[in-house]
């Protein structure tokens, strides 16, 4: 299976000035702009629609998605993306410009207002901003809100954000982007936050503790109330990373646990498609005291209907417009479809699936009890090789080698969409790989569109565009 690049199919050079569209002008061959403002030529593939349709159809077939089979990437929450949400987002009335008068975009504003409300209820937060276009953007926004809060209270000296070592990498990066020093918190022996270590890390310089709950081992932080109290006692804020919220829907709410600010990953918890890496959306929710600092605009009901407004001490903006609108529409549709009971059942089945799968596989699975995910250990195998070999069994492997607290980690999150049969097949794939010999592992994958790809060469000899390729 090999599909040539578009550039290998055609290369056409258009001379600028020779292709003027305005044929009614005196000189049909002249560009509408003076030469010094234009390029001389443009060279790109010029292909017909049938050729393009085949190109992209073939490429799609060389890509594995949730609709291809199990996709148990830990912390990524690869749920089924209901087809109807695509039709909802494709409604022509959704295709409007945000600068039209507010009176003439009441539909969009209403949807945003309702979604703000839904997310607030689900997270137990007092207010929600839908603007952040991804989870990491939500983290960054939350950090900015926390910083604005501290500065507003004359506590601008707080310069540290505490992040557990098992946290998602974005937590560290988002805190750093927000100007904070990151204090890494070592994990406790039970895989959860070590209260002593936390105590040692907390200080008058603590701006916030960022926590994922359940954490990346799938473990609920049982001491969450005490943690919240400790953080609040030193004047810090408690941040909830929503990546694992699918574990708790209807069972516990970050707001009720004492979190002051959180982000939601709607492309995880609320099943909007991951799209090969994005777009997602990372709305944030905050407790009352942080509401005045939220990004602008938010949406509220006014006398004329729905309207935008700027919170009193708003941090300003984190996206050029209102965030990833189409994603928000899909998230609304998903939440509306499931309702209370559906959301609660999604979590129940997600947690059941993780526990069942952990039970079925032969590998060592330390810690527990698990919620939506677990981390198995490949033992004396290289987890990355195990993953490659799993590809040969027709499934997507787990997240590998992370969190580092488990040696040769296989971080596994089946989500609620897998049936028992599917989990049994997935377990069989795990076990088959565990039984494979070293040669099979080293050779893997053998049944995929491409064999093992040389990562080192890719990074050493950078070829990042077709312009860099030798014509081979």
């Amino acid at each position, binding site marked *: 299976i*090999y599909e040539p690049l578009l*550039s290998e199919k055609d290369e*056409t050079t*258009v001379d600028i000035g020779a292709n003027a*569209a305005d044929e009614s002008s005196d000189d049909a061959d002249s560009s509408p702009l003076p030469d010094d403002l234009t390029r001389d030529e443009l060279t790109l593939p*010029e292909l017909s629609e049938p050729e*393009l349709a085949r190109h992209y159809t073939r490429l799609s077939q*060389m890509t594995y*998605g949730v609709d*291809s089979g199990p996709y148990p*990437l830990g912390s990524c929450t*690869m749920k089924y993306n209901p087809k109807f949400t*695509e039709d909802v987002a494709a409604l022509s009335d959704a295709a*409007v*410009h945000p600068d*039209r008068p507010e009176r*003439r*975009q009441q*539909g969009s504003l*209403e949807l945003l207002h309702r979604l703000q409300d839904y997310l607030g209820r*689900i997270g137990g937060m007092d207010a929600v901003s839908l603007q952040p276009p991804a989870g*990491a953007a939500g983290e960054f926004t939350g950090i900015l809100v926390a910083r604005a809060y501290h500065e507003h209270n004359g506590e601008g000296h707080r310069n540290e954000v505490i992040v557990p070592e098992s946290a998602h990498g974005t937590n*560290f990066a988002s805190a*750093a982007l927000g*100007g904070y020093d990151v204090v890494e918190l070592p994990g406790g022996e039970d895989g959860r936050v070590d209260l002593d270590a936390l105590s040692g890390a907390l200080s008058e310089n603590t701006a916030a503790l960022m926590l994922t709950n359940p954490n990346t081992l799938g473990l609920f932080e049982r001491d969450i*109330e005490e943690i919240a109290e400790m953080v609040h006692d030193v004047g810090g804020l408690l941040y909830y990373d929503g990546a694992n919220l699918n574990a*708790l829907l*209807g069972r*516990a709410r970050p707001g009720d646990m004492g979190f002051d600010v959180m982000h939601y990953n709607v492309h995880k918890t609320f099943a909007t498609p*991951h*799209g*090969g*890496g*994005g*777009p997602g959306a990372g709305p944030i929710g905050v407790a009352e005291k942080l509401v005045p600092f939220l990004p602008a605009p938010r949406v509220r009901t006014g006398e004329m209907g729905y309207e935008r407004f700027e919170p009193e001490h708003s941090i300003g903006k984190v996206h050029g*417009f209102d965030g990833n609108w189409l994603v928000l529409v899909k998230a609304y*549709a998903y939440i*509306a479809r*499931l*309702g209370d*009971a559906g959301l609660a*059942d999604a979590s129940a089945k997600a947690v*059941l699936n993780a526990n*069942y799968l952990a039970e079925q596989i032969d590998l060592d699975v330390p810690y527990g009890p698990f919620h939506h995910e677990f981390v198995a250990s490949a033992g004396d195998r290289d987890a990355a090789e195990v993953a*490659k070999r799993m590809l040969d069994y027709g499934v997507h492997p787990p997240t590998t080698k992370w969190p580092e607290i488990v040696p040769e980690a296989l971080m596994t999150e089946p989500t609620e969409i897998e049936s*028992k049969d599917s989990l049994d097949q997935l377990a069989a794939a795990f076990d088959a790989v565990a039984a494979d010999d070293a040669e099979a592992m080293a*050779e893997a994958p053998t049944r*995929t*569109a491409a064999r093992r*790809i*040389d990562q080192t060469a*890719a*990074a050493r000899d*950078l*070829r*990042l*565009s077709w*312009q*860099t390729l030798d014509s*081979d």
Partner: protein
Amino acid sequence: MGDGGTPVTRTPDGAGSPYAPHDDAETAAMLSAVGVDSTEELFDVPESVRFDGDFGIEPRSERAVREEVAAMLGRNDDLVELLGRGHYDHYVPSLVDHISQRAEFLTSYTQYQPEIAQGFLQVLFEYQSLFVELTGLEIVNCSMYDAATALGEAATLADRVRSASGHRVLVPEQLRAERRDVLENYVSGTDLVVEPYPMADGNADRESLADLLDEDAVMVYAETPTVRGTIEEGLSELADLAHDQDALFCLGSDPVALSLLEEPASVGADVVVGDASVLGLPASYGMGLGLFATREEYVRQVPGRLVGASDDADGRRAYTLTLQTREQHIRKERATSNICTNQAWVALRTAIHAAWLGPSGLVEEAERAVTQARDLAARLDAVSGVDAPVNDRHHFREFVARTDRPADDVAAKLVDRGFAVHAIDDHELQICATDHDEATLDEFVAAVEEVLEQ
């Protein structure tokens, strides 16, 4: 009554997720294997933080949700939008929708296992290559969120790569306010400060900029087309001014404009940012696609994902994410950016749309954006009480018109006639035409005449 829908759930009490496949027997078998009696036992949540309320969200059938959202969004009135200023409506060919809806593309994740993601990786590689051609820069990442956040990332990149320390990021005084606001937030964790430089008749005022620049400048940002739709005329000079102070020159543009205008690399751009979704998405309430391109020397400082070509074990060309050590999931707080989830699927749509147009179509679109704005401005200029364009420049898609009557009032009356335009100042309207057909523009001009005559 008839709803044409499957039961909301397969659980006996009619209250479960339709996307969880378990029937009762399967659930029971699984619970038994796990050794518990109910799923509730699996939640290791202390009683004190257990949630025992409800959200108050009623489940609805698929059909009901479709109808509900259709009715809700139907309250976005039908308007002909002549709106731009950073977000543009273009016709998107059917091919883009059909291909991008293919489940393999839509439902896949980031390509951490490249052997089963060659297709998406190749599309992203082709996306990168498209913009290498359009910008002349060697490095294009495979997406930021939007133009504003890409600009923010450009500033932090400038901060990282500049040899000497410095603090000032100079941006046009005429800039979409939200874009500047985002930039301010992106640099708020650094020592950088954002300062405006003056404009002259819609374009950068080079003399004033020269006066403002000193060795403390880290980056100079300019746009073409500008927020007022003018085509910037002195890009090389701007780049030279920046480079004279060892500052990076960052240019904001978009793929249609870049198909016609000077190649950014050839005028000295070090970074190109912008909204690439002018291809690939119709008007989407501001949702976009952040373009980010830069010089090869900065490749290890680039934010976001990069796809590279390599070989597989059989020696065949294959694609993979590369230089991931820049990224947050490996480098944590020392990453070049916190971005993880990006806009890959929009990039795929943009790549398909651009391929569908081909170079001829791209140039044609771009030339039309120039002539259409020119012609529409001339027609409005002929209306009594309107001067257009205000700026004596070439324009791209949009332009500013001065109205004798208050712009707010004119805009409001135009809305009543079904046309939305920007009122950007007391007596200034901004008008943007993309794929509007001639008849629509005729009606618009007639509406303007009518409103101005009242």
